[in-house]
């Protein structure tokens, strides 16, 4: 059985959880895989932490918690503080370089992308930084297919915002680079 465990973390308002939902949805409804998505967040709407865990597998997921993610997507420094330690030694970190100042040394495969500033400056929609991150994730890991993810994004975002989000996705897909 092939199974990938992911943690996508940020602070409230960055859309990390939505990113996880879109990812799971892409896997299940478009890629015909199995996925389990869970989340946690603090009571503040903004500024508090927000995290989602996604497991994607080609068989039904048995144990639904992510304790040692294969992939950590970090949208804030706080995400590293909270979840950096847990990452699989062979795992991958993808982070938003606008928000994370210090990536940890102990993770070997690290990728970065200026998701927030790309979203802000290229398409004037900083709120789509999470979709930029999904683009990067897709490119680097292929944990779900590009097609599945693009469809899932289109289904999940507000009507009228599909092309904006496609652009965001592409920014991520194209813009990510290894550290």
């Amino acid at each position: 059985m092939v199974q990938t465990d992911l943690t996508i973390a940020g602070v409230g308002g960055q859309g990390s959880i939505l990113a996880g939902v879109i990812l799971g949805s892409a896997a299940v409804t478009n890629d015909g895989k199995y996925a389990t998505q869970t989340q946690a967040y603090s009571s503040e709407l903004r500024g508090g932490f927000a995290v989602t865990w996604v497991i994607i597998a080609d068989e039904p997921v048995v144990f639904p918690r992510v304790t040692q993610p294969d992939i950590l997507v970090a949208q804030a420094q706080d995400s590293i503080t909270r979840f950096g330690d847990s990452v699989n030694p062979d795992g991958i970190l993808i982070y938003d370089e606008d928000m994370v100042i210090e990536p940890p040394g102990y993770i070997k495969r690290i990728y970065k992308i200026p998701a927030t500033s790309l979203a802000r400056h290229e398409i004037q929609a900083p709120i789509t930084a999470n979709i930029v991150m999904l683009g990067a994730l897709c490119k680097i890991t292929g944990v779900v297919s590009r097609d599945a993810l693009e469809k899932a994004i289109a289904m999940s975002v507000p009507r009228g915002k599909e092309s904006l989000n496609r652009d965001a996705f592409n920014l991520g897909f194209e813009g990510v680079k290894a550290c």
Partner: protein
Amino acid sequence: MSRNKKVLTGTHFEMGNWACAEGAIAAGCNFVAGYPITPASEVANRLAARLPRVNGTFLQTEDEIGAICSAIGASWVGCKAMTVTSGPGISLMQENIGFAVATETPLVIIDVQRFGPSTGVPSVGLAADMVQVARGSHGDYQIIALSPESPQEMFDLTIRAFSLAEAYRVPVFLMADGFIGHMREQIVIPEEDRTKIKQRKIAEQSVSVLDRRDFLDVKVAPMPVFGLGLKAHVTSSCHDEHGMRNLSDPAVMHTYVMNPIKKIVNHRDDIVQVEDDCIDAEVALVSYGTVSRSARAAAGLARKNGLKVGTFRMLTCWPFPDKEIRQLAENVEYMLVLENNTGQMYPYIKAEAAHACRVSFLGPQTLGQIHDPEYILSHLNRR
């Protein structure tokens, strides 16, 4: 049956709470009363939108007491009725859970359990309402409680809950928790006509209630629902088989308590579902709900390590699967009970097993987070 037309056949990636709401609709539920509470709110939120479209009614009440009472009232007029809440709401509903039991009212109660006691942590699940739903109202009684381990089972077991409630005229609890309530996974909803749903039996016309047996039948009396001219007499006081109040005859009192209990216990073979995966096992991991997934993962690891470990899952927690546990105890050497709490079902399990095998309990490393499979394994290695 236009009522059920809107069953959303297909594969979805949605929350357990979504699945529960859709399960209710697939079961023909047409009355839901509720009061918002984390982590159960999404069930009610969705039903508020869905029910009017399938000829049903959603009522947001002033509190949880109002919710269960109006759901019971609706059940007595023939609706398939449900309420949905979390632990604090169950606590408030206790008195009228007893009412539903005593008046033999079909009712589905969704408990998306959260971290308690008291206000605790609303968004974190803890499966610690397991005994409260069975013993939390005053007096002696039996209810049915089902324990799902996934969003898919929040759909499937919600349907089953309605069937059991209707078949046995009893409150049936779905013991979800915040973890699966908010978990998204694939949910497969079958074709509408593939879902088996049960309806209650209705009492027949008679000159007087004295000519009917509306209550206290251990085989389940047909229900004298309101509005049909049956002139039903329903009371929360001790009553006889016709529903007539009787506060002086000790024999009637005895029957008033015993028969609704027997009604469930006598049919326990139809009600109790367990998943026994312990063939050749020396060690059984006994669990229910979301922890079962830890248990299954741990058993997998253990078998890889050459340990003869099996799993035993209670899909039905109440009536308690005593017979099944006894049987299991006689076939294994050691039973490790796993619960995401401090051991609520454990005494009930141990009572049926201790004569035949060693039994012990293991809570999660951190309450509120289901056990890591490795943690279970290390416990098995250490024992």
